[in-house]
């Protein structure tokens, strides 16, 4: 690992002033909280920051009611959030997505601010000898014709098919969420759905955050029917595996009829993905295998396979169907 300076400022706002902007090639400085992505990528020389600015103890931690919404501090660990009653009882998808992510060791140190910014596991991104437009703009994409079984079929471009690797963001995107950010210009909020950007022809740009912006928390507006939500994660093994495909589903139902459906997809897209057309289709429908699968088809209508990952299109459709069925089967009592 390249030598770097370690600095620990007194406050989050001071940290923003101290961090050197990180360029696309992973130069400059970086924030360090849980460190589960940044240290991993530094060992691989994918990131070679000159300095790490430690914000782990400076970020607010914990979950609380605030202004009728749920406030989540960016310093909350995945483990603490996964077992928090506010998630478990009011929006189980937010809890499930954390329980089904990573391993206990990782969940104990990883924090929710960094979690939504987790970098892709694309093997060509992680290998400095491979062409990768995300790591080294203009170098090409080794993945489009490479071993791409785990890569994306939604939101891709010829320049990048890297999958967004996280889980929690795919559930968070179901709900109206404001991301609280502090930066050189002061504090502001970003709608969560606007945080991540499609790769297009600039895959090195992954979010609308500035180089020295720091996520400090989230304000989540949970509808009172969010208890009927699940995170269905398909993976090759039962624990500690990235999603092959996942679906976060929340349903507002009256008897068998869907008033409103919300669907977030993971493992199949370049960013946390909201399947709005499928949601629109489901509104007012009775949930059956046929309507569930049709929702899946709509969600993947524009999907493109890249060879090894062609199967993610039918798998993603089936995952939506399964998520819908599992959400519909929840009972309020069963979630408390």
């Amino acid at each position, binding site marked *: 690992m*390249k030598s770097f300076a370690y600095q620990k400022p007194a406050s989050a706002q001071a940290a923003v002033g101290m961090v050197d902007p990180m360029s696309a090639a992973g130069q400059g400085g970086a924030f360090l909280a849980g460190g589960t992505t940044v240290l991993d990528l530094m060992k691989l020389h994918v990131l070679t920051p000159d300095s790490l600015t430690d914000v782990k103890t400076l970020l607010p931690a914990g979950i609380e009611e605030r202004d009728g919404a749920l406030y989540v501090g960016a310093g909350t660990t995945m483990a603490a959030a996964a077992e928090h009653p506010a998630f478990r009882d009011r929006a189980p998808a937010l809890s499930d997505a954390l329980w089904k992510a990573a391993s206990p060791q990782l969940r104990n140190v990883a924090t929710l601010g960094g979690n939504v910014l987790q970098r892709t596991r694309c093997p060509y991104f992680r290998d400095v000898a491979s062409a990768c437009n995300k790591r080294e703009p203009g170098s090409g994409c080794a993945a489009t014709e490479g071993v791409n079984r785990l890569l994306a079929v939604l939101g891709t471009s010829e320049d990048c098919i890297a999958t967004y690797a996280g889980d929690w963001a795919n559930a968070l995107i179901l709900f109206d969420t404001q991301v609280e950010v502090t930066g050189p210009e002061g504090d502001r909020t970003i709608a969560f759905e606007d945080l991540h950007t499609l790769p297009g022809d600039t895959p090195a740009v992954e979010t609308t955050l500035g180089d020295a912006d720091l996520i400090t928390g989230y304000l989540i507006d949970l509808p009172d029917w969010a208890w009927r939500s699940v995170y269905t994660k398909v993976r090759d093994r039962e624990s500690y595996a990235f999603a092959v495909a996942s679906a976060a589903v929340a349903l507002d139902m009256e008897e068998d009829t869907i008033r409103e459906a919300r669907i977030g997809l993971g493992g199949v897209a370049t960013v946390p993905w909201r399947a709005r057309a499928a949601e629109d289709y489901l509104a007012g429908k009775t949930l059956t295998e046929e309507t569930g699968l049709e929702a899946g088809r709509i969600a993947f209508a524009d999907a493109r396979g890249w060879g090894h990952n062609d199967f993610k299109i*039918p*798998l993603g459709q089936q995952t939506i169907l399964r998520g819908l069925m599992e959400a519909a089967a929840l009972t309020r009592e069963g979630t408390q």
Partner: protein
Amino acid sequence: MSIGNPVHRIDGKLKVTGSANYAADFSVGTPLYAELVTSTVGLGRVTSIDDSAARAVPGVRAVYSHANPLPVDAADFFGAGGRAQQSWRPFESADVRFNGEIVGLVVADTLIGAREAARSMRVQYEEQDPAAVFGASGLEPEDLPDRGLSMGDIEQAMEASSQRVEETYTTYANTHNAMELFSTTAQWAGDELTVYVPSQWVEGFAAGIAEELGIDAARVRVVSPYVGGGFGGKGSLFTWTAMVAAAARDQGRPVKLYVTREQGFTTASYRAETEQDFRLGATADGRFTGFEHQGREISSRADTYVVNGGENTARMYHADAVRTGVTCIHADRQTPGFMRAPPEAPYFFALESGVDELAWKLSMDPVELRRINDIDAEPVNGVPFTSRSLMECYDAAAERFGWSDYEQTVGARTEGDWLVGWGCATATYPTQMGPCAVRIHFDATGQARVWVASHDVGTGAYTVIAQATALALGIPVDSVKVELGDSRLPPGTIAGGSISTASNVSAIEMAVAQIHDRMGTTAETMDPTAAFEAFGQRAIEEYAEWIPPAASRQQAKTLYNGKVAIVGGAEEDYTAFAFGAQFAEVRVHKYTREIRVPRLIGAFAAGRIMNEQTARSQYLGGMIWGIGHALLEKTEVDPRNGKIVNANIAEYLVPTNADVQELEAILVPETDTKVNPAGVKGIGEIGIVGTAAAIANAVYHATGTRVRHTPIHVEDLLPQA
């Protein structure tokens, strides 16, 4: 007496408290640290190396490469009777033979400095397109006609069948991924070299290091008292080990190398992928007629390495005619090596899937089909088995599993949203052993010490050796101290081929018999105080060299030469195998098709079992690995440049605790006095054999989809879009 006491591991406390010294734990003063630099192209040659940035890293002492090579010669390849994992030296030329090959070695004052310097090396290549995987152009097939078996007229036998299976089965490459990473620490004292290296073969490593350095083997000591998993991956001498020793000599300081997980994937050995053409015919009443098994196996350009499992699959069941063969497919890859049940794990996936396919065609219970074709003598030469408890294993496992409820209908059983399927398969492993020497010291206080250059790769060898000694002498187990894993000890066997326990126990019983003979004692009446008083000495020491009765003169002579001799399996006058039966229940989700294994039950008969507890753990560990073989493990090679793209344990998947649900190994009693004086068959490898086929057969039962490759993934079972 068939099943020994479940004595807890005598080294268990050392291990859980972190006091057991693994190779990398030994302190050698203030060592220098080495780091490997590996190639980023799959074929070609190094055209230039710019090490200026590397040399600028503080504390860098040396950068070695083909341009500044270390004085290390090639040692003979293991697969050709030598000790080394491959036949060539990385620095002997500028050539790059596979992606991830060693092209440089950096030595620095600190580990971090060595790592940073290695990353700073700028290596330029003239790159060519490698032929690295099946289907690539430029592969070189090498027929090995003398490795095949033939009996009867296969075509005629196939003609005579009323049902037949003719399919190709493939298994993907696997990487050992022992928990303990590879390492080497080398320390010179004058002309005497001590090497601490995780090893399943300290004698062979010492001899091989001496061969590569051009020094007397007596001057090399290899130390590896505890090994954090080997699985065959630490069985042949690593390419880097003598390089580290040469660097230590060059620098005049001890040198320590840690090989990263990723480098372990490319620079050490692996289980290569296979393609197997399989034919099996049967009469309408289930009697097998013709059996043919032809394998194709990936190897490196330079080395011919095949596991050739047809030699064993051909000996499992009745057949009127047999033909087997193997072709080595030379590719631009690292030389593969042995991994737990090297021939049986891949080849029994084909055999036991094929038998199941035939059972469905015949509408016969797959257990009964195997019973119909059960045999007393192997079919190729008609040589009798020393013992064969295959059907006893099937019956024991079937009863425990509840197989009597089996219904041969696809998708007959569901639980909630899950399709449930059942499958079974045969497990086997040849019973083998090797020449082994042991020294035993026994004194009037009743304490015994045992020395043998054997290995505990996590299997419980320390415990079993102590038990065998205690039992033979007639003293308590906790009165025995055992030293293993040092090439200065009496020569033991390689920890491979499931030979350690049979060989060690045979040698121990021989040495102890010499003690009883001299002292006039027996185990049953042993009273150390009285015995030594009568004997007139305070202690006694005996040394025994045990040579397996079936060993050739040449094999017998390997004992002090650091060479491997493995005797057993299909011999001229006897056939010795351990047997087992594996039963799997799988669940496949009706929508998303994930495959899970809620139940796995195996029954195994392997002669005398020395320790019920460590034996069960061996079986269970093998079965768990079998889940990985069936569903998870896949070393993914990018065909374009031969790069392994999942060279980490986040994406190279092995089963987690959550993937292992109900798991049971039944120890079926068996007495076999013919295999060796100790009556011991090996159990280290049999547990993985057949598991993958049992799971694949259960997947078919659940879904009606026959998957003829490993690993089986969700996409193999999905409806198409």
